[in-house]
C-alpha cells in the first residue's frame, strides 16, 4: 500500500526522480568501476606469472627484479653469469628454468632472448600456455617470434625481416643491422607483457652483441669467434619452476646464499604484495574520491526530497485525514529514498557491465588489462550494500521531517 504510493509519487515527479537516479547511478558506476579495475589489474599481474615459483636475478630489490624481468617495467638489472644460472638450474629440486636476456629493443618493443623452454613452461591466466597463431617457434640464431601487439601494430608477418637496437628506447643509434632477424612465428594474444615482446634465442642475441664488439675491439673479436658455438655468457634473470611448491622457501634461501656471485630470488606472490603496498596509497585515494562522489550523489537525493516536502505537507495532511498513521507517512518518504537508491544502484551496475562489455577489448589492447565480465565479487556486493545502507540512512532525514510535520500539522495546513 505505502510502497505503491511511494512508487506512484516518484513516477509523478519523473524528471527530478530520473535526475536523482542518474546521479546516484553515475556515482555507483565510478565506485564499482574503480574497484573492478583495481581487482582486475591485480588479477592480471598475478596471471602473468602463473606457475612460476621463483624469479632469480642479480642482487637487487625484489620489486625491481620482478618488474624488470617479468613485466618489462624499468631497466634491467645487472647480468648474471651463465655458470651461476646453470648451477641453480641443475639443482635437484628444480623442475624447469626459463632464462631471460633483456636490454635490446625493436622500435620501442623489448627484445627478449630466451630458450624453447619459454614456450613450453611459461603459463599465464592460471594455466594457459603460449599458442602460436602463425608460423613456428624460433629455432636458429636468426629466428624471431613476435607478441600479438608487436605484429599487429608494426604490421609484421611471418617471413619479414627485422633489425634490433641496443637499449630500450624508441630511437636508438646503435642498430644491430649487421645481424637481421627473420620472423618465424606470431603468438596469439595473452593480455600480458608477452604481447609486446620480440622473442629471439639466447644464441641469436649473443651473436648480435659479439658482432658489435668485434667491430670495436679486435681482441674480443678473436675471443668472440672462438666462443661462437659455446654457451651464452650471461643472462639477465631466469624463471624457476620447482618440482614441489613447498620447496620454494628453501630454494629461495639457497639462491640468496649462492657463493659464486650475489643473487636475488623472489617469490612472485610476495614481491607482488610489495608492489600492491606501493600502489595501495593511490588506490585508496581513488577509492576515497569515488566514495565521496557517492556521498554527493546521495546528497542530491536528500536535497530533492527535502525540497519536495514543503509542497507535500498538504498531501501528508490528506493522508492523515484518511487514517494514515505518522509512521506510514515516515515510511512513504523513506520508501521513496529507498526506491531512488535501489534504481540508482541497478542503473549504475547495468552501466558498469555495459561499459565492460564495450570497453574490454580496448582495455586489453591498450593497457594489457584482461577484464573478466563476471558476477559481482563479494567486495562489490559489500560496496553495493554500503551504498544502499547510506541511501536509507540519508532517507531517514526527510522521513523524520515529514513525520514531525504530520504530527504538528494534523489536518490543518493552509496555503
Amino acid at each position: 500500500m505505502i510502497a505503491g504510493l511511494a512508487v506512484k509519487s516518484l513516477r509523478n515527479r519523473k524528471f527530478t526522480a530520473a535526475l536523482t537516479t542518474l546521479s546516484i547511478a553515475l556515482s555507483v558506476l565510478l565506485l564499482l568501476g574503480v574497484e573492478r579495475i583495481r581487482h582486475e589489474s591485480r588479477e592480471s599481474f598475478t596471471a602473468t606469472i602463473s606457475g612460476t615459483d621463483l624469479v632469480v636475478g642479480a642482487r637487487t630489490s625484489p620489486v625491481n627484479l620482478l618488474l624488470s624481468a617479468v613485466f618489462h617495467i624499468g631497466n634491467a638489472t645487472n647480468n648474471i653469469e651463465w655458470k651461476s644460472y646453470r648451477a641453480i638450474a641443475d639443482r635437484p629440486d628444480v623442475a624447469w628454468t626459463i632464462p631471460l636476456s633483456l636490454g635490446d629493443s625493436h622500435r620501442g618493443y623489448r627484445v627478449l632472448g630466451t630458450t624453447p623452454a619459454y614456450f613450453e613452461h611459461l603459463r599465464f591466466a592460471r594455466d594457459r600456455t603460449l599458442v602460436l597463431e602463425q608460423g613456428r617457434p624460433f629455432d636458429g640464431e636468426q629466428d624471431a617470434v613476435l607478441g600479438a601487439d608487436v605484429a599487429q601494430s608494426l604490421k609484421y608477418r611471418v617471413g619479414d625481416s627485422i633489425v634490433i637496437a641496443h637499449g630500450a628506447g624508441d630511437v636508438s643509434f646503435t642498430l644491430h643491422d649487421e645481424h637481421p632477424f627473420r620472423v618465424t612465428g606470431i603468438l596469439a594474444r595473452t593480455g600480458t607483457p608477452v604481447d609486446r615482446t620480440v622473442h629471439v634465442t639466447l644464441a641469436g642475441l649473443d651473436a648480435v652483441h659479439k658482432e658489435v664488439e668485434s667491430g670495436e675491439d679486435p681482441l674480443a673479436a678473436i675471443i668472440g669467434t672462438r666462443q661462437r658455438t659455446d654457451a651464452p655468457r650471461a643472462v639477465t634473470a631466469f624463471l624457476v619452476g620447482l618440482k614441489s611448491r613447498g620447496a620454494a622457501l628453501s630454494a629461495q634461501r639457497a639462491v640468496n646464499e649462492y657463493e659464486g656471485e650475489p643473487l636475488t630470488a623472489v617469490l612472485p606472490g610476495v614481491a607482488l604484495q610489495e608492489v600492491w603496498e606501493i600502489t595501495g596509497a593511490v588506490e585508496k585515494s581513488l577509492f576515497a574520491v569515488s566514495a565521496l562522489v557517492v556521498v554527493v550523489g546521495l546528497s542530491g537525493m536528500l536535497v530533492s526530497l527535502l525540497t519536495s516536502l514543503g509542497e507535500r505537507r498538504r498531501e501528508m495532511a490528506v493522508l492523515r485525514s484518511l487514517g494514515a498513521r505518522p509512521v506510514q507517512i515516515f515510511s512513504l518518504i523513506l520508501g521513496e529514498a529507498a526506491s531512488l537508491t535501489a534504481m540508482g544502484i541497478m542503473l549504475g551496475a547495468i552501466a558498469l557491465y555495459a561499459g565492460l562489455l564495450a570497453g574490454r577489448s580496448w582495455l586489453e589492447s591498450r593497457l594489457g588489462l584482461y577484464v573478466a565480465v563476471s558476477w559481482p565479487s563479494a567486495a562489490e556486493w559489500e560496496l553495493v550494500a554500503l551504498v544502499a545502507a547510506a541511501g536509507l540512512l540519508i532517507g531517514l532525514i526527510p522521513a523524520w521531517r515529514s513525520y514531525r510535520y504530520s504530527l504538528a500539522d494534523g489536518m490543518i495546513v493552509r496555503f
Partner: protein
Amino acid sequence: MSVAAPVIELSNVRFSWTAASPVVIDIESLRIDEAERVFLRGPSGSGKSTLLSLLAGVMVPRTGGIRVLGQDIGRMGGAARDRFRADHIGFIFQMFNLIPYLSVLENVCLPCGFSATRGARASGGGTGIEAEAIRLLEHLDMADAALLRRSVNALSVGQQQRVAAARALIGRPELVIADEPTSSLDEDRRAAFLDLLFRECEQRHATLIFVSHDASLGSRFDRVIPFGEINRPSGAVNAPDRRKP
C-alpha cells in the same frame, strides 16, 4: 429526536497548542445525533478546523471528554485513533483534497487501503471496491471512462470536489465532516454540490458536519450551530490555530 443515538458528545473540552499557550477551544457541551445534518458556522481563524481535528482524533484535548460513536477517543492511543478515523470518518476539505499522483479512481478507493472495515463495506455488494467507487462517481456525474484513469490535476475545482466527496463516502463512514468544501465553487455549483452531499448522506444514514463561514447556506441544514456561541476560549481572541512545526 430523543430516540436518536448521539454520534458526537463533547463535555468541558479545552484545547491549547502547548500547555502555556492560550486556550483556543473551550466547549462546555455539544451533542450531535445520528443522521443529523449540522451546519457549524463561524469566521475563519476562529478555531473550527481545530475542533474538527479534535473530532477526528488527530489532536487530543487538554481536558474534557470527546465521545464519537459512543467511544471516548481521548482515551485511545495514537494508532487506535488513526484506525478509528480511517474506519468511521470521511473528510472533505476546502481544496487540494486529492493526492496529485493518483488517478481519479485510485483517489476514491484510497480510504479502503487504510481501513479494512471500509474496504469490506465498499465491496459488500459483492462487486468489489472499484465497482463501488465507479458507482459513487456515477452518482456524481463523474464516471466517464476516460475521466476515471485521468490525473486529478487535469480536473476543474468543481470536479475535484466531487471526487473528494466520493472518497469521503466510500465504504459508508458513519460520520462525514466537510470543512468549507464549497468555498471555492460558484453559486450554482455550490447548490448542486450540497444537493448531492445531502442525498448521499441521507441514503447512507450518515451524520454530516458541515463547516463554513458562509451563513447563507445554513437554511438548508437541520441545525445551525454558531461556533462563537459554543466555543468561549478564555485566552486571546486571535489565537493562532496552527503551530509552526
